[in-house]
């Protein structure tokens, strides 16, 4: 089961990460992405194909102290 930010996302299978981010309205200049515990650099987004069982975290900055 693919999980993105803690939620099941079976529909993402086979897409590149770049496609997934574009289709879901993420601003790629404002985020960082971790796949299965490893950070993916921005230039890898378009070549990485989302696999079954991938655990993906998409993070950005929010207010904090």
């Amino acid at each position, binding site marked *: 089961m693919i999980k993105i*930010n*803690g939620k099941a996302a079976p529909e993402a299978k086979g897409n590149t990460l770049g496609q997934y981010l574009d289709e*879901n*309205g*993420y*601003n790629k*200049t*404002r*985020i*960082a*992405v*971790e796949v299965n515990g490893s*950070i993916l*650099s*921005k230039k890898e987004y378009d070549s990485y194909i989302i696999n079954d069982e991938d655990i993906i*975290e*998409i*993070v*950005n*900055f*929010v*207010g*904090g*102290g």
Partner: protein
Amino acid sequence: MKDKLIIAGHEFNSRFILGSGKYSLELIKAAVENAGAEIITLALRRANSNADNILDYIPKGITLLPNTSGARNAEEAVRIARLSREVGCGDFVKIEVIHDSKYLLPDNYETIKATEILAKEGFIVMPYMYPDLNAARDLVNAGAASIMPLGAPIGSNKGICTKDFIKILIEEIDLPIIVDAGIGKPSQACEAMEMGAAAVMANTAIATAGDIPAMAEAFKKAIEAGRTAYLSGMGRVIEKASASSPLTGFLQD
């Protein structure tokens, strides 16, 4: 010579590090401007697509200081720091390792471990810590760029409860000591600066004020006043009175 705050070779005119938590994005620009702040802290969390992004509300030229809030150990702090750097906003990081939800006190041991790893990776590491001299020395050896001792529990606005211990750090540690957490009002920020702190970090005091931009300005003035007082050299304290007016030439006899 201009009085600058220097952190890992980076120079700042302002000695007020502003937090960005717990108030609306619309007020951030005014708060930063009124505070005269040149460094602002941020947190890293799971992204919501299509949501407004805080980076669009922070004026250009401000140094971003992501924190590792949410980290319960060194490993998690390192993970958050690396992700923060990947967003692409510089090498600064404020290490925050907490696993006590009641008082939110930092774990100095895990903080030292995270500092050592991240400093080796080229981060400019600014650890939030409980003011303990031995831990501060370990942080220096681990490669910290500044030390950020707490004044009181995060968000409490109680002031500098740890005053005497922060004074020891200021005396003994050869890095900027930045009082972080607990400072609730401008007079307390001024007190930290009078003691010789290099800077003050505040968030909740501003975020919970009635007029956020106005309170940011009040802190700015207090921090500047405290710094100037510290540089001036404080007047002495004595037990008995010492007349301020001449003791001769009275209109009598």
